[in-house]
């Protein structure tokens, strides 16, 4: 992500996108591997990425599968493990990539009023990365 990602949140288009910054991080060591932005957004992405090994492990695979079963879900699909964290000012999303094991797309948005748009943009970005 050395270049501006094609799924960047502030691109113009018919669909008004939420302000959103992305990075690609290692789940194993929390390193932010690729990120096109600087400043505060980058710092936030770096700080969040640093916690990834613990964050992803906290609701471990076994626990997620067990919960999915109890709730009548489909534990076979438990590799789907999106994590959304919301503060008064920011929305953070961690989305492990299905086709790039050990990597997660990390995103931060400085707005909490467009949750649907934020998630749509994250999913579109994940789709793009998984298709690469």
């Amino acid at each position, binding site marked *: 992500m050395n270049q501006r990602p094609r799924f960047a949140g502030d691109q113009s288009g018919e669909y008004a996108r939420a302000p959103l910054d992305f990075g690609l991080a290692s789940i194993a060591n929390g390193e932010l591997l690729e990120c096109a932005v600087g400043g505060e957004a980058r710092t936030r992405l770096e700080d969040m990425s640093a916690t990834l090994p613990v964050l992803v492990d906290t609701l471990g695979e076994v626990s997620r599968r067990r919960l999915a079963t109890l709730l009548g879900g*489909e534990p076979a699909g438990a590799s789907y493990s999106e994590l959304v964290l919301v503060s008064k000012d920011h929305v953070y999303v961690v989305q492990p990539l299905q086709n790039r094991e050990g990597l997660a797309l990390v995103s931060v948005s400085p707005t909490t009023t467009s*949750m649907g748009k934020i998630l749509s943009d994250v999913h579109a970005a994940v789709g793009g990365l998984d298709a690469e």
Partner: protein
Amino acid sequence: MKPEHSWTPSISADPRLASSVIRLLELVESTPSGVAGALRFGEHGAILVDNRKICWAFARDMRFGLTELLQNQYEPALPRADIEGVYRRCRQEGRPITEGLLEHGLTSELGLRRALSKHHGEAIAQLARTFTTPSDFAPSRPGYDVRYSFTAAEMLALSGANVDPSRAARAQSELATHLVDETTGAAFVRSQASSGALVIAVAPHCQLPLVDLLDVLKRATSLFDVADVFDPGISLLRAACCERTALVAWRDQGVCYAGLCASRAATARLMSSLSERLTAPAFAYAEPPRQKGAARP
């Protein structure tokens, strides 16, 4: 109505006792599904169970009985003879006592449920103090009204609520406000006394096994702890369990909440409700105000 916190089960903050209560409730959950019977603790007492729900419990050395609880729901207290008269008539007629109490206007459905929960909670607390294991589970015919039976999670929450009844009442109201169809959940506070999470409220009829409920609450707490590292203002999170199901956790005024959602629609509705509140100008994540305990509404 009299303030009720003067008549609460004697669960203490003693970690060993809290663990003993959880162990007893897990025993209730381990009884056969669909079967009624008694978990007997020899001379110490028993817990009567129907389909893994607690219908009745008694123990030696209980500080108060159901009669006292019913009497003291009102100011002035109901005459003891009135209540005992109903007990007698119901026994003679072979009818449930609950039916007679309601029929004679000696309590309401809600009042009866509260009194029974306190009675059973006190019995379980006393049984927990003995640190004994049940001598057997003796199957019996089901005969209790399901309206007045309690899941293990409900009973655990009722016990935890006694630490701060007004906080528990607020937490129960918060769950009622936000939990939607296809969700269940619980409210809890951090506690060394109960393996990290003291459950103070649960969604009505929450049937999640205690071991899973406590596990998810601890994990929700841990997720917030990790999130605090990069943004201490995070007060709402959603963790997908699979493509359909999710854990939604939030915290407010020192209380953590966990909502377990069985569908994407339920997750979306819960997140929407909570994020609306989060972004409202009046909302700010804050430690709980120090208030003296008040009676549950």
